[in-house]
């Protein structure tokens, strides 16, 4: 018996050219992508090589100075810092979401939907209102500090709000469901017989987890990582509200170019293009990893005696 678990997760169907009916069916999607994805991206590319208009807007032309302006200590620092925050958020979300998603996925049928509902209930309230709720919880004279002081755990109220910690907390809180849901979807499809087989054949629980459960839920993990990392990289409201706006994120810098003092649309567009490239890179890295795993699946990776 020579196989890895991933082989089960990657059924490859026969490939056929799409029929005219199929084209007709995907036409609305193609149109949607063309109008709302391709066209705006092209506009952004054109703006990013133009020059600044007096009242905002752009004067069309061709220059690379907006990209040259990016090669600057401050902007590079801000880009790296934003990637760092997004990466930390993604890691914490993954650690927190995996056990939760696994438990929900393995729960009895009648509980599963109720538990999933609990994950989704926060979406009924506006994201901004939920973030402002954290301001109320974390503020100097807020309930959290009040409780800690009341029970004598701390003498003075802690500085919780307007810190990097508060920003990470807000980001994790915002994006956790985006990690739980795709992992849950993978866990739900996991055949418990495979786990049992691994255990019966002598694999320790930890080994069964790493060699069977993790590879089988990898598609969910990858989807979750992308769904959390990409928006976390561009978001700026959490940084403003919980971080006090002290250090800008890349999203803040882009916003400032359009809605702030600078009125520098071409530079904002150049930054946005770089952000899209970062997203593309993240996407490419995860799909490259996926492809590597599929190739690996054809090789004898695990040999269970």
């Amino acid at each position, binding site marked *: 018996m020579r196989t890895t678990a991933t082989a089960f997760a990657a059924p490859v169907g026969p490939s056929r050219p799409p029929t005219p009916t199929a084209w007709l069916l995907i036409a609305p999607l193609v149109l949607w992508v063309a109008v709302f994805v391709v066209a705006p991206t092209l506009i952004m590319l054109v703006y990013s090589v133009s020059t*600044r*208009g*007096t*009242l*905002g*807007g752009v004067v069309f032309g061709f220059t690379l100075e907006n990209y040259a302006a990016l090669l600057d200590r*401050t902007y590079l*620092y*801000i880009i790296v810092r934003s990637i760092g925050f997004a990466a930390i958020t993604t890691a914490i979300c993954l650690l927190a979401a995996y056990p939760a998603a696994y438990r929900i996925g393995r729960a009895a049928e009648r509980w599963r939907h109720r538990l999933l509902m609990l994950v989704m209930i926060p979406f009924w309230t*506006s994201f*901004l209102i939920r973030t402002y709720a954290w*301001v109320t919880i974390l*503020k*100097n*004279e*807020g309930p959290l500090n009040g409780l800690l002081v009341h029970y004598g755990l701390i003498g003075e109220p802690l*500085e919780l*709000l*307007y810190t990097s910690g508060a920003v990470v907390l807000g980001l994790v809180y915002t994006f956790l469901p985006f990690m739980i849901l795709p992992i849950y979807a993978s866990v739900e499809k996991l055949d418990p017989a495979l786990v049992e087989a691994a255990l019966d054949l002598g694999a320790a629980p930890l080994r069964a987890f790493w060699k069977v459960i993790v590879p089988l839920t990898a598609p969910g993990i990858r989807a979750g990582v992308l769904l959390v990392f990409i928006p976390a990289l561009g978001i700026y*409201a959490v940084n*403003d*509200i919980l971080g*006090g*706006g*002290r*250090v*800008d994120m890349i999203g803040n*810098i882009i916003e*400032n*170019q*359009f*809605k*702030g*003092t*600078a*009125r*520098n*649309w071409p*530079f904002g567009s150049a930054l946005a293009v770089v952000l899209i490239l970062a997203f593309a890179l993240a996407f490419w890295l995860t799909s490259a990893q996926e492809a590597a795993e599929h190739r690996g699946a054809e090789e004898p990776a695990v040999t269970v005696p």
Partner: protein
Amino acid sequence: MQRTAILGAIGLLAVAAVSSCTTPARHSPQSLNLFAWSEYVPWSVIDGFTRETGIAVNYETYASNEEMLAKLISGAQRYDLIQPSEYTAEALIKERRLMPIDWSKVPNIRNVGAQYQHLRHDPDQQYTVPWMVGSVGIVVNTAKVADDIKGYADVFREPHKGRIVVINDPREIVSWALATIGKDPNDVTPETLAQIEPLLRRWLPLVKVYDSDSPKTALLNGDVDLGIVWSGEAALLYRENPRFRYILPAEGAHQFIDSLAIPANAANPDAAMAFMNYILRPEVSRLISAEFPYTNPNLEARKLLSAAELANPASYPPGDPRLVTFGDIGPSAVQIDKLVTDLKAAS
């Protein structure tokens, strides 16, 4: 206030998008497209205008002058009335984007004090009707800060580290440093920016919160004890608790003048001028003051205010403070943005 307003604006946009499908005659004389700051035009005023004239008002909101400019010049929507601050009005006038006002249709302009007319942004008083006037000054929580605060230099001191909120606006921040070294806040050149750089490098690490949307929140919550904020925010704080004292900096402060103006491509300028004349009536202007306690430039309306309203030092600062309006600084805005971004990242 501005963030909730963005949500409001999205809602209004949605409503506007739907109504544009159902009412093709939206540019009939019976409607007015008003594009104004969020939380700045009371609904009672809009409803009163519609009741009296039959002109329906589509009120769309923005949260910064630049956001307004972006939508105005994109041309996606034609507006009849906008509400720029003085330096934005100046830029719009320079670019011939505003329509001259026919004062015979706006006779109530006589209620506006002479000191608020013929200013640098509109020297011939051809294009703008002053809406509200305000300043950017210092708020001190006197229960927590005992020292005598007179100006910017007293705020940005080492003992106040981590206790300061300022509005998140590079132009404003730079103007405080310029005033401190005795320069005009409109004197923005590479040389003056280089002169204030060391000062800002010392100041910015002391700041705990940058917030233009609702700087009063951090003060009310007790997270900070000092602030440099819009006078309207300070007036609301004072109303909440008189321990929040408003001080106009001795070095000089920014006086902003928000005006109503008609874009050059307005579809319904007559309705716009009718609205201007309506809000200049003392009893209507008084309603605006009650909701948004800035300095009312309408002297006839001021006579209708209560003693308590007039005594609010953030609305009507006592003494003779040094106030300067902002001018359009053109492309220097990019350097200001870069300087503040650099120093924030370094702090």
